[in-house]
């Protein structure tokens, strides 16, 4: 699904963001990208949706070499990729429903499909009751769930999440990660760049660690149980620390 071959990325100002990074991510995998600030996580994500091109090396997405992709083909690449950012990027003058529908309208979906699929997707992320709310009437977690709904409403093959929990508290973060895991269970490949060590440690999935642009660790986790020991421990820790809540 995703292949990186000796990918280097040097920004025009001379910053080396990635240095000979190689990795293969298969269909249906769930992968964390971790590393200190400035390690190149966001750069890696931007390379996948062809916001940036590698300076050298190759990135393949679904079999296509992105360096050789014609500019006019980029939108069609992106229709296979759902993207979630730390700052949600919802349109402030549109309701939750409209924000999600926007992603469908943009690729020319029929009003009938939109009317059918948007509520179903909002239901999936648990936002049915907030369909008519504007982003500034939503909590951070709700906004991120709306963004997630927008990312998956077109049923992409890949979901990219760049620090999706960066602005959220641990409990809310956990909810978002649960949603991503659920999307992944449906067969969608998920790549999540994150700082949140506790999440990575609790959810036993593959971790690609970057440091100063180099992949320093790529650990496959064998335990693919839905709720591994670590996950359970973290969840219990959370419920203990927020025991005042129902």
């Amino acid at each position, binding site marked *: 699904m995703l292949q990186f071959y000796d990918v280097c990325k040097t920004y025009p100002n001379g910053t080396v963001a990635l240095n000979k990074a190689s990795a293969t991510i298969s269909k249906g995998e769930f992968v964390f990208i971790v590393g200190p600030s400035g390690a190149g996580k966001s750069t890696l994500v931007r390379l996948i949706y062809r916001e940036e091109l590698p300076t050298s090396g190759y990135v393949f997405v679904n079999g296509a070499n992105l360096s050789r992709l014609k500019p006019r083909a980029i*939108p069609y690449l992106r229709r296979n990729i759902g993207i979630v950012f730390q700052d949600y990027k919802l349109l402030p003058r549109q309701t939750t429903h409209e924000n999600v529908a926007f992603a469908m309208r943009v690729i020319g979906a029929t009003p009938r499909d939109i009317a059918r699929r948007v509520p179903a997707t909002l239901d999936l992320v648990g936002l049915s009751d907030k369909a008519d709310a504007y982003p500034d009437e939503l909590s951070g977690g709700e906004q991120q769930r709306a963004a997630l709904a*927008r990312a998956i409403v077109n049923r992409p093959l890949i979901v990219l999440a760049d620090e999706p929990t960066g602005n959220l508290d641990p409990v809310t973060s956990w909810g978002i990660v649960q949603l991503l895991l659920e999307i992944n269970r449906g067969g969608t490949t998920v790549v999540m760049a994150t700082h949140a060590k506790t999440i990575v440690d609790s959810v036993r999935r593959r971790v690609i660690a970057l440091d100063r642009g180099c992949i320093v660790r790529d650990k496959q986790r064998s335990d693919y149980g839905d709720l591994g020991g670590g996950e359970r421990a973290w969840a219990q820790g959370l419920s203990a620390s927020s025991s005042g809540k129902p």
Partner: protein
Amino acid sequence: MGARSFSLFLREALTSIRRNGLMSLASATTVAVSLFILAVFLLTAVNVDNLASTIESGLEVRLYLAADLDSTAVDGLKAQVASLDGVTEVRYVSKAEALATLRQQLGQDSDLLEGIDQMNPLRDSLRVFTKGSAWVDAVAAGAATLIGVEDVGYTHDLAQRILRVITAIRLGGLALIGLMVLATLFVVSNTVRLTIIARSEEITVMRFVGATNWFIRWPFLFEGMFLGLLGAAAAGLAAWQVYIWAVSGIYTNVSFIPVVPVYPLAWRLGFSLLGVGGLIGALGSVLSVRRFLRV
């Protein structure tokens, strides 16, 4: 582009124009002003052109003939002159005809000519018409060498000078029109850029959810086109009224100056202005949306 997207883009463009009301008004006004100036220029150009061809068609060379030529000699001479480069027509005027014409021109003062019928001082002549002012000199020079031609007259120096001025005006007008179009383009593209900046968030989202560049472009293109058409319509209406007023003014005060009639000129001008306005608007918005679509 399907009908559904079309109406969607149209609605978005209208909404955006309404939202940036003052800015939209300002740029439509600018388009109107520059297109109005353009229209005035075009109208002037059309009339100057008309005037020029009227003058040019009146440019003639007069060949005064020797008194002793018989009709065969005159016919031979006519054929020779007609074969000169640039000559369109040659007409024989006998001295009796010339006198009649003169008498007519003098009108009430024609009694001055009383009694000269017997000893007509005028000469037989050939009126030579040319393709244009550029040929007059060569034709005159060529005809002067022919046997039987006593004298060559072409007193249209002034006309030629007027024609030279007209040519200069035409060239200057073209340059000015070019500048005007560029300025209008700049203004429209700036207005549309403001809209684009206001909606840059939306463009970012459109891009990462997979909108094609044309999908992003159309609403802005429509917006620019609307502003252009709006300005053009205003300019056209104003130019139309001004031209009607000018034509009637010229007609009543200086009727010897030939003017091009209002219709169908007004229609043609109106459609041209709409075309130019719409094109400038569309081009202006495409230009300013371009940098936001760069990958």
